[in-house]
């Protein structure tokens, strides 16, 4: 019943294993980087085409002003959410198994948030004037309008990006110090600068722990606020189907859902590409699977509750979009139901499946397909059946290219970063190593852990 503990590893072995992704570079890494880079490059070219031609290139029209860029924005902001959630909430709950996952999920957040941040700029009609939305007065002393949910959004993204980079970097400092000793040449200079002169004195560790306590507690409301405000972008409007006070928690749940799916994908990819089978165990997939399972229930609760309340009220002005979704978007809806509910529910219920990494990769992909479709059904059907004007939207090659470009950008960033940072937090992993052990009790050996001090 108890998970078999990994064979204890020596510190040097851990250091070697976990810095291998930096010290050794194979052709495969270059190939993957090139692949993602070229997809991203294509997306960037299409973006240039869009700037040249105008927003109409996406095939939007009058009642459907927002389309694929916004869908992508919501989706990537969602993916970004869970990275910090995994490391912050698990840290708060003293879940020992988080230690192998924190770094890769935090990196996921940073990369996905960068991708999400690109889309509002890409989506506006005059992309070159994006800086008008920043908080500074223009030459006529006019500041931006803080009544607009879009500006709340811009604020929330910048705050979340800043704080998650701080969170990520704070954890990296001790690891950079290890890398400083293990690298040569320009890398050594780089890490010497990046580790800020860290020596691991108890003065430093004590502060780092307190800092992590503060960051952990406070970054949770930050990431909740980000997706809340993304939900409010829709909820504040009076478009039937968008104007819903449940959107904020619903979006947060949806984001956690797709984000956890993305965590599974990243876990699998990192484990395979950097041969970290000893560090990312089936146990981790199992636990993330359970987290995913409970989030899926929660998400389904909100998903159903939102539509349900509109459906039951039978208010004519509130239900046209719902009918449209059930008819025109029935295939997208089917994607959600199959990939977002059926597949995860049936697979995650079994411990064997949860412990099989490649199956969990499939679950992760499935959840993300479902959540992308869910964003489609949130963004498109409601305005398509607005109160007075109806319309239809069909994605075209521009939108699809940009969507692919986003995946390319994300992959490119992640692949690139994985060459410069230990993708599993070395110090956290080794800290966990001496916090666990086996005790003989009666006839068996039981795993025991040191209880962590409370945070906050």
């Amino acid at each position, binding site marked *: 019943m108890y998970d078999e503990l990994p064979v204890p590893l020596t510190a040097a072995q851990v250091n070697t294993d976990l810095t291998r992704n930096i010290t050794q570079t194979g052709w495969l890494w270059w190939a993957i980087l090139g692949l993602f880079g070229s997809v991203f490059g294509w997306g960037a070219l299409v973006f240039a085409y869009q700037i040249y031609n105008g927003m109409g290139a996406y095939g939007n029209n009058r009642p459907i002003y927002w389309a694929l860029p916004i869908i992508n924005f919501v989706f990537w902001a969602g993916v970004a959410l869970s990275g910090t959630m995994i490391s912050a909430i698990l840290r708060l709950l003293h879940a020992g198994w988080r230690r192998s996952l924190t770094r890769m999920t935090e990196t996921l957040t940073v990369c996905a948030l960068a991708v999400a941040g690109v889309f509002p700029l890409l989506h506006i009609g005059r992309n070159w004037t994006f800086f008008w939305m920043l908080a500074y007065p223009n030459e006529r002393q006019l500041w931006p309008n803080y009544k607009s949910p879009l500006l709340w959004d811009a604020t929330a993204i910048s705050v979340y990006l*800043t*704080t998650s980079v701080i969170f990520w970097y704070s954890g990296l400092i001790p690891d950079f110090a290890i890398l400083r000793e*293990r690298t040569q040449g320009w890398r050594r200079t780089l890490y010497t600068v990046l580790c800020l002169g860290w020596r691991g*004195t*108890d003065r430093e560790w004590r*502060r780092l722990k307190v800092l992590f306590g503060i960051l952990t507690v*406070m970054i949770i409301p930050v990431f909740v606020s980000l997706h809340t405000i993304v939900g409010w972008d829709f909820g504040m409007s009076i478009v039937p189907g968008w104007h819903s006070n449940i959107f904020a928690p619903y979006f947060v749940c949806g984001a956690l859902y797709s984000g956890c799916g993305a965590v599974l994908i990243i876990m699998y990819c990192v484990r395979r590409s950097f041969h970290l089978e000893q560090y990312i165990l089936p146990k981790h997939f199992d636990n993330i699977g359970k987290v995913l399972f409970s989030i899926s229930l929660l998400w389904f609760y909100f998903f159903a509750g939102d539509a349900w309340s509109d459906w039951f009220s039978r208010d004519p002005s509130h239900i046209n979009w719902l009918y449209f979704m059930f008819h025109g978007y029935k295939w997208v809806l089917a994607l959600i139901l199959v990939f977002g509910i059926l597949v995860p529910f049936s697979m995650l219920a079994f411990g064997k499946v949860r412990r099989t990494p490649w199956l969990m990769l499939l679950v992760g992909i499935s959840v993300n397909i479902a959540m992308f479709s869910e964003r489609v059904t949130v963004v498109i059907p409601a305005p398509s059946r607005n109160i007075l004007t109806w319309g239809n939207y069909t994605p075209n090659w521009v939108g699809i290219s940009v969507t692919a470009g986003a995946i390319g950008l994300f992959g490119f960033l992640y692949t690139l970063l994985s060459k410069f940072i230990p993708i599993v937090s070395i110090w956290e992993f*080794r800290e966990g190593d001496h916090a666990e052990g086996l005790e003989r009790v009666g006839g068996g050996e039981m795993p025991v852990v040191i209880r962590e001090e409370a945070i906050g």
Partner: protein
Amino acid sequence: MAETTVLGLFEEIEQAASALNRLRGEGGKATEDLMVMSSVPFPEGVLESDKSPIRLTTVTAVFAFVGIAFGILLAGGTAQLYLIPGGGKPISPAPSIGIIAYEMMMLFALTAAFIAALYEMRLPSWRSKVYDTRISEGLIGIAAHCADEEQAEKAEQLCRDAGAADVRRDARAFE
């Protein structure tokens, strides 16, 4: 005799703890002359020589309030500089001020916590200081700052007695 630092390197926590206690007791070292170095953190109190107060929580709280004030000025104040009515809403409505004030509170508090932590850690500091690369490979370093040769020898002896894997002197800056 110049100041020097004796650096004992230990494999086990218990050895390091005993060396620390001995240096403190028999060696008569003051807290600020001792330093524990390791590449992993230990549970609170396991190996600690540093007793300086940590004020991060206070700094965070103070800057949270600064952030709130900044947010109110940003969302509510800037709108008052150039009055533009719209949508039948007040020029500076409380809900949107609240939201921006909240975001700014978080931004200021977290950034301040990070900067204050670096300040209290005395980082960044790229000067060459007492260190041993083996610490990053898992050894625990106990550094004792000694004013003269006699103290240094005593400290070396104490470390060896406690079971140090290696003891050496380091003339670089202690702190």
